[in-house]
Structure formats: C-alpha cells, structure tokens
C-alpha cells in the first residue's frame, strides 16, 4: 500500500507541477521551422473561418476570396493603390457610348485541368454567373450580351453605362473557372475547384485545412515562388496568434486587436494594419417606430462617439466612419465628415420629435465579443440623453433573415466592401435595393446614385456621391461607425507580401526565407 500511495502521489504531484508551470513566466526561445531557400517551401496561412464554398460563382463569404486568390485568376485585378490592372484580360477598349467593353485575352493560358483559357471560356463564365442560382447575378445584371469576337477577344455589352463594371471583374464575378471541370463535376465543382491561378487545388479536410500546390505551368514567368500553400482553419484569433508565435503558421488573416500594441516589437513577426474597403454600422428601420422619426435617428447618430469606439475597442485598427467609402476609395473625404457628440443638440432633437425624456429601442447585434462590446458602448453613449438601448444578441443567419424581413428596430450589420464606391452604396439605398434593409427611399438619392454609376470620371463621380451622402447623412437610415482595418500577422520569414486594399492575401509573389 505504501508503494501504491507513493506512485499515485508522484502522478498527482507531477500534474500539479504541470499546472503551476503554466503560470510561471519561464522564458524559452521559440523554435521556428524556417527553411533557408528563396524559392519553394510551404506557406502556412491561418484563416479565421472555414471557406464554405470554393466556387466563385456560388461564394458569399469573405474568407472564400482569400483562397480564390491562389486558385483563380480574374479578368482584371486591383493593385496596391486600388487601381484596376490587367490580368487575364491584357487590354480592353470601352466604346464611345460606354456600353461596350472589348477585352483582349492573354494567350497560352491553361486551366489546371489542361484545357485552354480563351474567349469561349470567358463567355461560359459570364453566363454561369448570370444564372439565377448565383449570387453574382445581381452584380452582372447590367450585362446584356457576351459575344466571342475571335478565340482571344470577347465583347461584353451593357444595358447602360455602368462605372463599377471593371471593379466587379476584379472580384469573384471576374474569376475564370474551367468550363470542362464545371461540366465534369457539376454540383460538386466546389470540392474540385479548377482555375488558371498560380496554385492548384490538391486536398481539403473541411474544418481543418486546404492544401494547394504550385502550378508549374503558370502563365506569369517565374511565378509562383512557393511550392505549396496550406490554409489552416483556426477560428480563434488568439490561437492563430500562438501558432504564428510558435512558427506553425506564417501569416494570419485576423489579429486580435488587444495584441496589436504588444506585438509591435516582436522579433519574429510584423503586424500589418491597413484600411480595408468596408464599414461597420447600424441599420435603422425607417419603416416603423421609433425610427420612422428622422429626429430620433439623427439624435442617435449624433450621440455616438466614433473615435472612442475605434480607440478603445479596436486599439486604433480602424477609421471612424460617416460614409460607406473607406480611405482606400476615391470617394472618401468630404462625405465622411461628422459632428462630435453633442448632448444639448441631441436633447433638442428629441424634444422636436416629442420625446423630450428619451425613448427605448432594441439593437440586434451579432454574437462576436466585438459586436457585444460595440453594442455596450453605444448603450452607454446614448444613456445621458435618456435613450435606452436593449441589446439582443442574434446569430448572423437569423440577423440577416430578420433584417431582410424588416423585423427589427436597429441592427448592426456591416459590409466587407468592394473596390468601386457604387458597390458600397447603391444596393443599400436605392429604393427596393437588395441590401436596403433600412427600407429607405428617396427619389433624389435614387437619381444621384444612378447618375454616379453612369459616369466614368472619378472626380465627377465623387461630387455626385458627396451630394448623395449629404442627403443620406441628414436622413440617417444607417449609422456608420467605423471602417474596418485588415489586420494581418506576418512572420519575418515571409518575403514579397504586398498589401492590396481588398485585404486579400495574394500568394503569387510571396517567397519564404
């Protein structure tokens, strides 16, 4: 019995030691599995969620687009400054009436399955994306006809001049998938994605990882530099950071805000925090009380201290917002101005609306801790004016459903953003627009938004958007809070990463030391 006691004790004690060991600040050098070669090697990128659909035609999640960058090339791309640059379309001509785009395609490009990329493939992709079941349909609804001029020239006709057209082709709607693979796999294409991109889909274990291999026949000379990309699904940002610290991932697509400051001097990795294209904010349902009263919407808008939200909750990794146009957009600037919180003015507005003692409303928010913190801060900011905010946490699918049906008073739903300003404003305010969850309608705004999308000159467009935003900010169907920053953690062993404002990691030029 004595021996048994002893051995049991050793076990228990060693566990206790293990436990206490966790809290002791023992310093040991981290070992990184960094390889020495300039080309080749594997790049491990952690993604904060599992891409639902690896098919550009069906995709709706932001995270899908991270992986798409490596598998699919697009008709055009955007560069570091957000300018449109050639990709699979090496040049294009826009007709006088701005309605016909003629694209000349790269020659000698092959899909990963060995079939040719040509004008027929482009036509096929356009038609596939304009199909009823594709979320791309709405983006391409101005396209009336796609015709093959010769094997490497495609002509696209639009119903009317449509400024965002090229920007749209710099994203999922412009990604070219192999027609042969679509025919072969049918509904299962999403599990066998085939494009012309720098990396070839190899294997996927859902919820765990996606492995891509170098496309040895890639049409850009000397690219890609790596042999393999592994996207690891790590849902918790802190765990992703620990993987970065321990060298198991080279890049993380999200970074915990609270750790940004602390990580500035880390010898092993760099934190990149750059403005993205999107925004976060709150829809107000203008079709029913209390927010059918403009003054109440204005009062809420006026009381929110955006700087405080950005500084406290995001550790500065964001830009206070008052418009849908982020600092990366040419339309940014004038329209993003807003007033500092003014309690007296808010009280006057409440009085004018017949609610001198305030009112209460329910704000529906998503389930993430950040959502909740934003909600609580707003709750506190509105309290001095007697405005009582009831927070209701709702899972995103439900939140989307309820807002679309108008079954809410206020709901925090943001937008990941697109390169062209039209894609960040039009569908949200135009009468009956698919993302007009606020049920806002204003003939003048409708007219201005239509005018802006028919104008190709950026300076002129900016003026029109400024006019539209002046009306929108006066009427407040939506409260802009901040423009998100894209925050990445990148190991110092990674070379050649170039930040592009769409926030997507382009792997083609990256190498590892």
């Amino acid at each position, binding site marked *: 019995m004595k021996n048994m006691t002893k051995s049991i004790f050793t076990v228990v004690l060693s566990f206790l030691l293990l436990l206490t060991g966790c809290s002791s600040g023992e310093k040991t050098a981290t070992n990184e599995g960094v390889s020495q070669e300039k080309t080749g090697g594997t790049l491990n990128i952690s993604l904060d969620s599992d891409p639902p659909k690896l098919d550009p035609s069906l995709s709706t999640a932001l995270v899908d687009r991270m992986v798409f960058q490596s598998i699919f090339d697009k008709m055009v791309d955007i560069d570091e400054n957000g300018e449109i640059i050639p990709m699979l379309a090496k040049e294009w001509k826009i007709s006088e009436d701005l309605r016909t785009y003629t694209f000349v395609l790269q020659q000698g490009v092959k899909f990963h399955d060995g079939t040719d990329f040509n004008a027929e493939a482009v036509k096929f992709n356009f038609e596939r994306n304009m199909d009823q079941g594709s979320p791309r349909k709405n983006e391409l609804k101005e396209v009336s006809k796609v015709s093959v001029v010769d094997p490497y020239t495609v002509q696209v006709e639009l119903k009317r001049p449509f400024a965002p057209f090229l920007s749209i082709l710099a994203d999922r709607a412009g990604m070219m998938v192999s027609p042969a693979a679509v025919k072969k796999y049918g509904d299962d294409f999403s599990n066998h994605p085939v494009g012309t991109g720098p990396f070839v889909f190899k294997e996927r274990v*859902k919820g765990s990882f996606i492995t891509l291999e170098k496309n040895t026949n890639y049409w850009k000379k000397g690219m890609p530099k790596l042999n393999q990309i592994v996207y*690891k699904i790590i849902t918790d940002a802190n765990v992703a950071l620990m993987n970065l610290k321990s060298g198991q991932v080279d890049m993380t697509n999200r970074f915990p805000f609270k750790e940004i400051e602390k990580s500035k001097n880390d010898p092993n990795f760099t934190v990149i925090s750059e403005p993205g294209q999107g925004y976060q904010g709150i829809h107000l349902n203008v079709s029913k009380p209390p927010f059918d009263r403009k003054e109440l919407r204005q009062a809420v808008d006026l009381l929110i201290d955006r700087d405080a939200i950005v500084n406290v909750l995001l550790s500065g990794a964001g830009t206070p917002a008052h418009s849908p146009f982020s600092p990366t957009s040419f339309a940014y600037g004038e329209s993003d101005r807003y007033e500092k919180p003014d309690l007296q003015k808010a009280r006057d507005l409440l009085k004018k609306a017949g609610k001198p003692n305030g009112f209460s409303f329910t704000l529906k928010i998503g389930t993430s801790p950040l959502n909740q913190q934003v909600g609580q801060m707003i709750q506190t900011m509105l309290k001095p004016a007697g405005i009582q905010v009831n927070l209701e946490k709702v*899972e995103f699918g439900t939140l989307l459903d309820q807002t679309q049906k108008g079954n809410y008073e206020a709901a925090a739903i943001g937008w990941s953003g697109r390169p062209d300003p039209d894609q960040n404003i039009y569908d949200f305010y135009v009468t009956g627009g698919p993302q007009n969850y606020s049920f806002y309608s204003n003939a003048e705004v409708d007219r201005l938004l239509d005018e802006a999308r028919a104008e190709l000159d950026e300076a002129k467009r900016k003026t029109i958007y400024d006019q539209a935003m002046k009306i929108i900010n006066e009427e407040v169907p939506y409260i802009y809070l901040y423009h998100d920053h894209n925050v990445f953690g990148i190991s110092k062993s990674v070379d050649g990463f170039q930040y592009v404002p769409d926030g997507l990691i382009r792997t083609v030029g990256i190498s590892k030391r």
Partner: protein
Amino acid sequence: MLVFLFRRLLLAIPVVLLVTVMVFSLLHMLPGDPATVILGQEATPEAVEALREELGLNKPIILQYLYWLGGVLQGNLGRSLVDHTPVSDLILQRLPATLELTIGTFIVAILIAVPTGILSATRPGSWADYLSTTFALGGMSIPHFWLGMMFIVLFAVRLGWLPASGYVPFFENPVANLAAMIMPMVATGLRESAILMRMIRSSLLEVMQADYIRTAYSKGLKDRAVILHHAFKNALVPVVTTSGLIVAGLLGGLVITESIFSIPGFGRLIVESIYNRDFVTVQGAILVSALLVVVVNLVVDLLYAVIDPRIKVGKGADV
C-alpha cells in the same frame, strides 16, 4: 445475450426516430432560412425564392422529413445544402478525430481518476484525500478551454514541444497525430477525471463500509487485495454508468476543445452546419450522434454484467 442485444437494438429504433423528428422540427423553427444564408447579404428576393424551390424548402415539412427518411433508409444521408458534398462523406471526414479525442480524453480521465479516487477513498480525511479532493474541485471549476489555452501557451509557444493546433490523421502519421492530440486530451480529460474521481471516491467509500470488506480484512488479506479485488470491483457499477454518460457527452460535446485546437471534429461540424443552416448535414450528423449514444449505452449495460454477475443481461425485467 444475443436476444438481449437484438431487443435493445430494436428498442433503439423508436428512440432514434424520435430524435430525428425532434431535430427536424426544431431546425425548421430556427428563424434563418437556408436560402438566405447560402446566398448571403447580396441576395435578391427572387434569387432566394428560386433557391428555396430548388432545395425543396417550399414543400411541407412532413414531406421534407419523409423524403429525407426515405433516403436514410436506403443509406443515403443526402447532400450538404452548402456545397453539395454527400453528408456521409462529411461525417466520415469528421468522426475519426472526435472518436479519437473521446477515447483519449476518457483514457486520460481514467488514468487520473482511478488512482486518486482509490487513494482518497481508502484514506478518508487524510491529507492525500484533501489534496485529491481539492484537485478534483479544481478540475471541475477550471474551464477546460482556459486550460487548453494555457497548455498552448506553455507547450507550443514557450517550450515549442508540441504543435499549437492542427490535426493529422492517426494512420497518416501516428507521431504527429499524438503530438497534436495530447494537449486537447489532457485539457478535457482533467475535467472529466475530476467528475469520475469524485464518483469513484464516494462509491468506494460506501463499499468500504460493507460487511464483506470487514470479513476480507479479518481473513488477513492485504490492503491491495481487498481494495482492488473486493471493493473496487463492486464500486464500479455507478462508475461505469458515469463513464457512459461522460463518453456519450464527449461525442457531441467537444465543440470548444475542437475549436481551440483546430481539430476537424464532429461537434464543430454540427455547429458550423447550424450556422450555415445546412439542415441536411445537421440531421445526418445528429442521427449518427444518436446512434453512437445508443451504442455507448448498450456497451455500458453489457459491462454491468461483466462487472457484477448478479446483474444478468437478457434475463429479469430490470435490465
């Protein structure tokens, strides 16, 4: 024995059916609509309607259920609404990790609980008892996700001994697999061991008071012989019951552990599918999960008979 097995399996059918009916109706009561979730923020109402039609979501629920059940009876669990992957493939992809994690967690729990449980029951009131009771209390109160994070900080970041997360199938690379699984197993196993240890302690304490233990001692038997051969075996019945509950709970309840350690497990599959309103996948996964629980219960019942011959399987009404 065979008759018993057969009867139990037969009895399981209505249970499993009831589970599927409940899951089916509860899922359809969820406010989000699969078509809306699949098409996302940019969806136009027409596109949503068209997709609903295509997915058969416009049909009455009863019809949808019967259609699904018909498929299941033919061994077809359907295809995921999100990406059309056969649900059975998704489950087979995810199940091994969870089964391994469950078994590993349980082994860790047993390895800790049995010795500490026996120690504290045979020396009630001693400092060893207090120590292990404190340990058990700690194990139950410390959230295992926190413990998991601390493990990662210590073993992956500070010491660099183990990978911070990621999963490699066992048959692909057993060493890498165990390296990735040891932290989650221990983090979760510690909590389960605490429950089990308390169970062993109380059950053993009760048995130790019994007359036959005194008889055994009076015959001059050694501590070890009395405790292991007489007392512990008799104390096992409630412990096995608890173990069954623990294993059944782990099978679907490892979501948090799986998330922290990025293990592509079954629990995460169910949660992700619920978020995506992927009804077909959720139904399939829950069906499999219900079947697993039935099997675990069956094993527990069979174990009773092995441990305590007085409990006869297949005979008597109380089995």
